[in-house]
């Protein structure tokens, strides 16, 4: 059984891998931000700009949008049966997720480079 030919296995696996990564990142971020001494623009930008946090956030964005795409696809395939409606909706969400991906990566990169 080829990887791509394993019907539904790849999205199924991506959904779970992205979930596990996001769970780990959320716990780390919650712990790290809970111990923050001040709420300020500088402190926030410095935190996001730390190389490790910045890279972990970039991976989080990829995981989140992959997870959102697989989930949205599953929901649309289950509840929107007419192809004339399902296809444009899939396209719309693909576009929203792609824009969100490049937009957030650009923000993360700008802070990392600052």
């Amino acid at each position, binding site marked *: 059984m080829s990887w791509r030919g394993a019907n539904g296995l790849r999205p199924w696996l991506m959904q779970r891998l992205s979930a596990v990564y996001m*769970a780990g990142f*959320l716990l780390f971020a919650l712990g790290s931000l809970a111990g923050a001494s001040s709420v*300020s*623009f500088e402190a926030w930008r410095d935190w996001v700009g730390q190389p490790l946090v910045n890279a972990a956030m970039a991976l989080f964005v990829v995981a989140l949008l992959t997870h*959102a795409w697989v989930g*949205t696809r599953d*929901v649309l395939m289950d509840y929107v049966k007419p192809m004339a409606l399902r296809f444009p909706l899939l396209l719309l969400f693909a576009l929203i997720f792609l824009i*969100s991906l490049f937009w957030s990566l650009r*923000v993360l990169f*700008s802070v990392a480079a600052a």
Partner: protein
Amino acid sequence: MPVMAVVSILHRISGVAMVLLIPLLVYLFDLSLRNPQGFQTVLAVLNSTPVRLLEVLLVWMLAHHFFAGVRFLVLDMDWGVEKAVARKSAWLVHGAAVVTTLLIAGALL
């Protein structure tokens, strides 16, 4: 509706609701990192009373989605698939989501 089905449907509803929030969250993230004024604007929005109530709802959705997701991962490994255990773990998801929401809401409000 059996409690396991409620967990499944809430997992879907919370997932779709959070997906619809993604563009707004990316915008707020961008604004918060642009300059000190943008950061203050985001803080002011997040601290306004109506938004705070929505944040509590968002925290509950995220917590529920999180715990229900962990439960699905465990079920995938064939653990706790017996009906009595699956029913208990479904109740545990609802309970853990409410407790987490109360804890975080208490810290935020």
